């Protein structure tokens, strides 16, 4: 059914669709309505899942079991470091970074040497990875055609070559469609996101088909697998491989940002930092989903084809075909095609930018200065170089594929590539967080790491493929035992990846740190270090302006821009820049440091920071700033920053102080109001007895013939009210003394039992008059506390007279109980009176608030007894409270702490 031509047409149609998506994305970007949303960004990150994932995961799972998962755990963990990635994005935006090579070069003084080195490492590391994609596509076509029994060979060229040509063609269309050479490609990102959707749909469709169509679900598959000892092993975590797991997690975590295509997508193509927040969970979710069916597919394939020698890497295709599901197989093929093309397109675009900006341009600029000067518009040349680079990289990939074939060098290449790009990590992270890192250090680190990688990983893989003698692996270089490529210095027992990662990182980080500490940065390096490490606080405009001194002609700068960006784009950018400086026309702007900075940034977006620096220097007469001078300026900037921080801190202090003052004022106002209320209440309390006294004495005075009975009655009331008045005044003064802390205390050893007995004796008369029973439960010689005897007696009498006031005459009972517990003396005065509500239980301790609320039992107290008693008890470190409920009597309790036992 599936003829070669049919497959070719479907594949081409699919690529056409991709192209339409990309066109749409570009058109929307041009119209200013970007379709790059957080979801699109997150999906485009899945360009990480190549055909190595699509076909290879299943293959890995058939031999390594669950270890395939590490490749997806690393990225998930890395993405959790949102702060690091945000910083990378912020720096890249500020510096108009075009690639990872540009990033590293720019940080270390816009170094062409470093840019070139990173580019070379990336190309060497990644070309075999591209070859792997071609191999996967070729293999998938073969599987489909074998099945239908026909084959495709056009003009004597094999299908893989055709595939490479088509891919080169599409990559050129995607990545270098624009004539203006800028660093971002929204259409490409849209297409990649679309491909991510296609590949996950295809993979899950196959997974569902195999798991539920061919077998009875996940449970069934795992049960059957567990029955076979061979397959059961795949389901278990192998602890002896823990070292490998760690290495794989670290490697894949680094790869998710340092593979050129990943850096391109995550950092360069990012349009909005906030998109990252979505990607942080959406991308790991994507990885989880695409991995769910890996193990079921591996087990299903092994069970189905057991012993038939079917390549596990092709299970995704062969399983549906085995059941005649050709449409599904075709969908799987399209999914694999998506995975491979997505990777190849983004990778070649990223690499071509690096090759163009960081290898070709420097050479062109140096060797053929005149040639460059002769051309007016160089933007066409830039595009041309990139297109050639894309074609060349794919050609290299194809050649490698042809040469390697089924050899080991191809199968293991995914991880070998990861290990290569991991070498960028020290220079990158160091550059972002460590100002002392220098260019010399970065060069030394990269070089050492790369050499170790070459010797311990890439060359041994060549040797295993039989391309070179394997003596250096088996016996060590020149027969020296500790130079064995995969057991350096006798470190054996590790797998090759862990071994390489360990030694290369040791060499890389060691050289980077050691050389950095022993070398001095030049002026440009020092200022770039500042801009990178302090990107979040760098006061750009001000400091930039002072870091450049010289003379430039605006015409020469504009000419430079027009030549590299193309006239139209140059004018557009100039207009935007002019309006940002509030000028109507760029011609009215002086060619000052800011203008030069703008021009250099624009150029950097097109040709990379290192080349841009060289070009700007060629048209401007620049005054070299010495390192000391640059450091002074940066130091000053730091000081200004420190001052403004100090100022901010001062302001905050001031605000805090103001708030405190306001609060204090509020408190004073509240106190004033309370005092006012207090005086008003005191006045009221004093006026009440005075009213009776005045009215009655006036009447006595007016009418001397008043009959004797009335006279006696009035006089007795006057005497009582006068006593009440005296008591009230005494208590108010007492209270005031207690509250202000001016009360006099005579503290000594007091026998509380004695105090209780004496108090009870002194109120005996009151109780007898009202016929209330008073009983006590007090030890013979009571507990001794340190307190004021008279004051405690005052408290006791107050509680007792309150009690007798409230209990009913005749059947009233008051009981006093005294005991010690937990270092406290506890005195209880319990009555069988009407009791108190919960609200009353707390208000009675407030000044002038009395219990009882009807005229008949209006108490004769002043409303100050309990507050005073509480003050006294609290003065000695105790508490006074009441336990009561309406109808259940009241139990007033106070405690006084026992003196601490003497040693």
């Amino acid at each position: 059914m599936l003829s070669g031509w049919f497959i070719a047409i479907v594949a081409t149609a699919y690529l056409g669709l991709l192209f339409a998506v990309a066109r749409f994305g570009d058109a929307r970007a041009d119209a200013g309505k970007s379709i790059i949303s957080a979801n699109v960004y997150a999906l485009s990150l899945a360009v990480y899942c190549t055909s190595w994932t699509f076909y290879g995961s299943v293959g890995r799972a058939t031999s390594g079991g669950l270890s395939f998962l590490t490749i997806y755990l690393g990225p998930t963990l890395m993405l959790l470091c949102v702060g690091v990635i945000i910083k990378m994005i912020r720096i890249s935006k500020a510096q108009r970074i075009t690639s990872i090579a540009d990033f590293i070069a720019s940080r270390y003084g816009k170094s062409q040497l470093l840019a070139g080195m990173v580019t070379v490492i990336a190309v060497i590391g990644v070309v075999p990875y591209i070859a792997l994609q071609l191999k996967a596509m070729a293999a998938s076509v073969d599987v489909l055609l074998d099945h239908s029994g026909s084959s495709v060979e056009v003009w004597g060229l094999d299908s893989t070559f055709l595939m490479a040509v088509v891919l080169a063609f599409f990559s050129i269309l995607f990545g270098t469609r624009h004539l203006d050479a800028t660093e971002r490609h929204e259409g490409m990102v849209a297409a990649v996101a679309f491909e991510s959707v296609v590949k996950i749909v295809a993979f899950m469709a196959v997974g569902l088909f195999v798991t539920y169509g061919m077998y009875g679900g996940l449970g069934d598959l795992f049960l059957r697998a567990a029955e076979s000892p061979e397959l059961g092993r795949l389901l278990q975590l192998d602890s002896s491989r823990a070292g490998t797991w760690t290495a794989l997690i670290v490697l894949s975590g680094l790869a998710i940002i340092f593979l050129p295509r990943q850096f391109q997508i995550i950092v360069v193509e990012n349009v909005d930092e906030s998109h990252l927040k979505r990607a942080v969970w959406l991308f790991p979710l994507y990885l989880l989903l695409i991995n769910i069916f890996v193990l079921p597919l591996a087990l299903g394939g092994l069970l189905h084809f057991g012993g038939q020698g079917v390549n596990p890497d092709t299970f995704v295709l062969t399983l549906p075909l085995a059941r005649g599901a050709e449409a599904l197989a075709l969908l799987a093929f399209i999914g694999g095609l998506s995975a491979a093309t997505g990777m190849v397109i983004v990778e070649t675009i990223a690499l071509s930018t690096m090759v163009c900006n960081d290898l070709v341009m420097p050479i062109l600029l140096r060797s053929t200065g005149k040639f460059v000067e002769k051309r007016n518009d160089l933007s066409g040349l830039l595009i041309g170089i990139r297109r050639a680079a894309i074609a060349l990289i794919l050609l290299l990939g194809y050649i490698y594929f042809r040469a390697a074939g089924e050899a080991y060098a191809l199968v293991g290449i995914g991880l070998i590539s990861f290990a290569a790009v991991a070498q960028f990590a020290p220079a990158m992270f160091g550059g972002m967080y460590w100002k002392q890192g220098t260019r010399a250090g970065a060069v030394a680190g990269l070089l050492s790491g790369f050499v170790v990688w070459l010797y311990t990983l890439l060359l041994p893989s060549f040797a295993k493929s039989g391309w070179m003698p394997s003596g250096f692996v088996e016996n060590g270089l020149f027969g020296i035992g500790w130079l064995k490529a995969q057991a350096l210095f006798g470190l054996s027992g590790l797998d090759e990846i862990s071994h390489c990662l360990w030694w290369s990182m040791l060499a890389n980080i060691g050289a980077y740190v050691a050389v950095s500490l022993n070398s001095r940065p030049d002026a440009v390096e020092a200022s770039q270090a500042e801009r990178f490490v302090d990107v979040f606080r760098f006061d750009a405009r001000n400091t930039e302006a002072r870091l450049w001194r010289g003379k430039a002609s605006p015409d020469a700068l504009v000419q430079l821009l027009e030549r590299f960006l193309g006239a139209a784009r140059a004018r557009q950018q100039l207009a935007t820049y002019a309006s940002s400086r509030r000028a109507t026309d760029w011609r009215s702007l002086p060619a000052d440091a800011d203008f030069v900075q703008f021009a250099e940034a624009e150029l950097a977006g097109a040709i990379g920071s290192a080349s841009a620096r060289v070009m700007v220097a060629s048209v401007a007469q620049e005054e070299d700033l010495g390192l000391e001078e640059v450091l002074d300026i940066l130091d000053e900037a730091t000081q200004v920053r420190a001052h403004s921080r100090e100022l901010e801190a001062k302001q905050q202090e001031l605000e805090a102080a103001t708030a405190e003052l306001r609060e204090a004022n509020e408190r004073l106002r509240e106190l004033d109001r309370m005092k006012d209320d207090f005086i008003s209440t005191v006045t009221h309390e004093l006026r009440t007895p005075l009213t009776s006294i005045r009215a009655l004495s006036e009447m006595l005075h007016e009418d001397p013939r008043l009959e004797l009975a009335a006279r006696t009655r009035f006089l007795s009331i006057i005497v009582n009210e006068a006593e009440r008045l005296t008591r009230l005044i005494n208590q108010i003064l007492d209270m005031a003394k207690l509250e202000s802390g001016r009360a006099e205390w005579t503290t000594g050893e007091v026998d509380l039992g004695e105090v209780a007995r004496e108090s009870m004796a002194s109120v005996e008369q009151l109780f007898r008059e009202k016929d209330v029973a008073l009983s006590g439960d007090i030890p013979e010689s009571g507990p001794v506390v340190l307190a004021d005897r008279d004051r405690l007696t005052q408290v006791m009498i107050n509680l007792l007279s309150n009690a007798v006031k409230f209990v009913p005459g005749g059947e009233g009972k008051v009981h006093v109980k005294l005991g010690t517990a937990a270092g406290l003396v506890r005195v209880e005065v319990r009555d069988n009176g009407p009791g108190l509500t919960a609200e009353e239980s707390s208000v009675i301790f407030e000044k002038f608030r009395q219990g009882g609320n009807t005229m008949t039992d209006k108490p004769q107290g002043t409303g100050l007894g309990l507050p005073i008693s509480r003050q006294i008890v609290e003065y000695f470190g105790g508490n006074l409270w009441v336990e009561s409920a309406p109808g259940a009597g009241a139990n007033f309790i106070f405690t006084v702490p026992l003196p601490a036992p003497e040693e």
Partner: protein
Amino acid sequence: MSKKILIVDDEPNIVISLEFLMKKEGFEIAVACDGEEALAKEASFRPDLILLDVMMPKKSGFEVCEALRADPAKAGLLIVMLTAKGRDTEVAKGLAIGADAYVTKPFSTKDLVARVKTMLGVA
């Protein structure tokens, strides 16, 4: 027919003195010792004038005054507020809610009698 006065206060000694004072002047007297009782007595006793204390349990003098003034049938009833709180705001409040006079404690018996007589038109 002698005029009727209702005395409302929660201090028994003040009630005793007011009662004695007003009886001596020939008024007919009734007594209440809280706000609720005051409203009940007003309904049964139908006084011409009320001597009304402000700070009382159950219902304050202000509340009693408001309740009485809400009934248009009692528009002729005279209300004299008696209070130990002499702040200006309280005086203003008492007059605003419809009291006819506001007397602060302690008061002069002579002045109070004269005031009451004037208000009742028996001077």
